């Protein structure tokens, strides 16, 4: 199968799912915005109102971390079972198994495009003036996309070998939510060395911090680090796609034996 054909199949499936999804709910496409906003409100209620975070801009701060995090979390968790539930198709045609998680990721990407527009609208309406500096959002978004592809494909593949991985995947996502500075600021850690370490070791923490530095504080990014990260993620995503295509029939055999 050629790469363009692969991409077109991924795109067709994603669009079909989105349409089917929208017709299933009374509020349809509104949920694209409503779901992430409700999550933000839950966090806001707990961390700002109940626990008194003490930041005046907590809501904006939270949105800039939480909306990108939810993109990661929902893509990875919805991809996890994507190959297993497509058992029927897997048993009918020899197609690249990466199509199934990639379709889920694509679905998430379309939704997230709307969410990013919402994010920008909220930031602008709160009084932050847009600037050319915001163009840095693009490499940040591309890097996050590549991380999502890598993690989702690895997850979906592992689940085919042992279903136990679904539990580990959801635990890992929860762990990542706590250590990636979604609702707390990695820059306010008492020990600055920890801040450095977090930003270095955890690419998600670096990205979420990056979104805030660009959108809220108009601060420059560590461009060298971002460039390195982008290259590493690109290589990782390509490696995982390659491995998956080599293991295609092994995966099929596992799925059909389930």
């Amino acid at each position: 199968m050629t790469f363009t054909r692969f991409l077109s199949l991924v795109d067709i499936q994603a669009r079909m799912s989105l349409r089917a999804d929208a017709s299933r709910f009374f509020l349809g496409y509104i949920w694209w915005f409503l779901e992430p906003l409700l999550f933000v409100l839950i966090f806001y209620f707990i961390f700002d109102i109940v626990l008194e975070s003490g930041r005046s801009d907590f809501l904006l701060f939270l949105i800039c971390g939480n909306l990108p995090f939810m993109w990661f979390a929902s893509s990875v968790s919805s991809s996890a079972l994507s190959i297993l539930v497509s058992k029927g198709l897997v048993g009918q045609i020899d197609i690249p198994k990466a199509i199934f998680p990639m379709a889920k990721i694509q679905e998430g990407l379309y939704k997230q495009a709307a969410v990013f527009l919402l994010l920008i609208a909220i930031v602008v309406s709160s009084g932050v003036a847009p600037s050319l500096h915001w163009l840095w959002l693009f490499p940040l978004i591309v890097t996050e996309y590549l991380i999502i592809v890598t993690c989702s494909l690895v997850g979906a593949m592992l689940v085919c070998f042992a279903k136990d991985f679904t539990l580990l995947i959801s635990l890992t996502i929860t762990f990542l939510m706590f250590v990636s500075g979604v609702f707390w600021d990695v820059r306010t850690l008492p020990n600055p060395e920890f801040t450095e370490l977090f930003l270095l070791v955890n690419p998600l923490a670096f990205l979420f911090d990056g979104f805030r530095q660009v959108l809220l504080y108009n601060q420059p990014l560590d461009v060298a680090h971002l460039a390195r990260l982008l290259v590493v993620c690109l290589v990782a995503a390509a490696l995982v796609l390659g491995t998956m295509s080599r293991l295609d029939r092994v995966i099929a055999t596992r799925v059909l034996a389930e």
Partner: protein
Amino acid sequence: MNEASNVLLSLQEIGLCYERRGSLFKRISHEILRGINLDLYRGETLGIVGRNGCGKSSLLRIMAGIMDPTSGSVLIEPDIHRAVLAIGLGFRPDLTGRDNAYLSSILQGNSKKQAKEYLGSIKQFSELGDAFEDPVKTYSSGMQSRLGFSTALFSHVDILFIDEVLSVGDGYFQKKALSAIKEKISGDQTVVFVSHSSASVKSICDRVIWLQDGVIKMQGEVTSTVRAYEKTL
């Protein structure tokens, strides 16, 4: 043309054994197929008969390129499109019949344009009417197999593998499907037809393989092979 150049697909000493993890330290090993040698010729309709659990579906999946055998080799002409038609499988329940037919058609190798053109014929042949626009999760198993069959009928695969699909649905549709397969076969469609029902095998196949406990028990001419198989039932 000599016979060898007409071989589309050739299986050599195929064995299939799979290990399933029962729990952490327990592994259950199954030998499903062993020592299978088989040539599939262009344009023929090969029947595979055998009782449930004899390895028919696994053999079909290996021939269709969905699984690799654990031993032996599968030789196939380059650029051959293969697809399996099986009961009620391969559909996404949340999508409509139309979306599923379109998707399957493209997955089976049709272009977007071809797939769109076939949708009318698929809808008509499947006789689903307005249900074609409903999600597949609302379909009965008969309706699902009608949709699956119609989709496979209007796609250009070089080898069509049919797994028991004629045994469901009402008698009327079964007859219609059988005559559609016959029509397709009369062209140069190569078909591998798997069934435990000997009647449909007798009516459409040119050659039959009888599979028992993972080995080829007998193969060759339809009437005598099917008769021998029927005696064991």
